[in-house]
């Protein structure tokens, strides 16, 4: 994968460039009222949103908003015209236990990503837990289709990725991105997922058609558990683009905190 290597270097280069930018850009139109901080107990107050005058914390820089909105629209159309019917058909013909089994299988083989990222976050015990869970599930758990690690051994899984690892190092989001097909991301998280690709065993299969096939099944199966989610988000939202953007950033921030 020499191409993606150059992409990573390019990303890291851009990263270094933008690292400081978002801090200023994240709080656009800082009006006089925004700077009022009423309490010294800032951290605790923030948890309870004491300062309601503050504009949309934590905020995210979105310099490519026009392009992002355009891709968002395309993704929206794709969802209703293509993805939704395919997922519905898949759900119709695939019984739930099969889908759960497949999900477990793909989660299990994704162990390297979790273990390595736990390690990179200096959490060796969690990393070891991942490896033990993998050993247990791959053997007793019938090649990972069931999760005895959870049901019998009570081992908690840590859904870590490189984006979160970078976040835990204090690297900011950079800026917001909407990717074709894949949806919400940020410069940091995209960089992370490119790195995580190297830890994905599926990518080490030699036949590229098999890689595409396996990846498609994995994606489709994962989508099948989230059928109807997007419709609900749209139904609840007044401004779907902002709703999805803010939801993604809040979700990732929480994941990094964990």
């Amino acid at each position, binding site marked *: 994968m020499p191409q993606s290597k150059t992409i990573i270097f390019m990303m890291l280069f851009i990263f270094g460039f933008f690292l400081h930018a978002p801090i200023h850009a994240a709080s656009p139109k800082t009006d006089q009222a925004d700077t009022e901080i009423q309490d010294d107990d800032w951290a605790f107050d923030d948890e*309870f*949103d004491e300062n309601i005058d*503050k*504009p949309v914390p934590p905020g995210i820089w979105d310099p490519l908003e026009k392009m992002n909105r355009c891709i968002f629209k395309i993704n929206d159309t794709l969802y209703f015209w293509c993805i939704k019917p395919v997922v519905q058909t898949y759900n119709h013909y695939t019984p739930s236990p099969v889908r759960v089994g497949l999900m477990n299988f793909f989660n299990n083989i994704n162990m390297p990503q979790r273990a390595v990222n736990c390690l990179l976050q200096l959490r060796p015990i969690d990393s070891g837990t991942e490896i033990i869970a993998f050993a247990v599930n791959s053997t007793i758990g019938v090649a990972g289709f069931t999760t005895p690690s959870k049901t019998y051994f009570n081992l908690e899984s840590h859904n870590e990725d490189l984006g979160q690892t970078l976040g835990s190092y204090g690297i900011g989001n950079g800026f917001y991105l909407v990717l074709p097909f894949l949806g919400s991301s940020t410069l940091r998280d995209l960089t992370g997922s490119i790195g995580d690709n190297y830890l994905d065993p599926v990518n080490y299969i030699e036949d590229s058609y098999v890689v595409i096939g396996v990846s498609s099944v994995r994606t489709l199966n994962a989508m099948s558990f989230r059928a109807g989610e997007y419709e609900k988000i749209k139904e609840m939202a*007044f*401004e779907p683009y*902002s709703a999805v953007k803010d939801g993604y950033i*809040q979700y990732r921030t929480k994941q990094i905190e964990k």
Partner: protein
Amino acid sequence: MKKLTLSLTLVLLLISSGAVAGEATQELKSSIDKVIGMFKDKQKALTPEAKSIQRKKIFAMALDLFNFDEMSKRTLGKEWKQLSNDQQKKFSHLFARFLANIYYQRLEEYTNEKVKYLDERHHKNKSLVKTIIVTQKNEIPMDYKLLKSDRWRVYDISIEGVSLVRNYRSQFHKILMKQGMNDLMNMMKQKLGQFSDL
């Protein structure tokens, strides 16, 4: 010695139960149990008339459970202060009906999920209650922020770390930047039109 251990365990029990189920948790739990109770026997509300009665009941319960004024204030942020009293009332009324409708819609999908109450924290007149919704497939963390007035009422819900108030604030902020308050109110009315009126 036996007496000592007994009294110690009693004290421990009292402390632990007090820590897990504070006043806010208890009030929240009783409200949620009441609401969920209505959806446990689903057959009751199949006809449109029964549904509209159920909706009205849920709205009444939601007024006990949520502090809609506080929610409106927080979602608008500093724009709230620029509104006249009359506008504030109108906005808060619309937003309340919108949220209650969403709440009702989600409840209709209720299929015996369990709510586990984990933790409660206090700060002045506010409380944070951490819960987990246990479904057949997974567990969804859900945090409630409550404010004490005549009783504890919820002013924000975070689902998997995504705060409802913050999410709406980001949307309203965008809309108010491009358009105005009147447009936002009209959008709300339009959205409400999708649901049958409460």
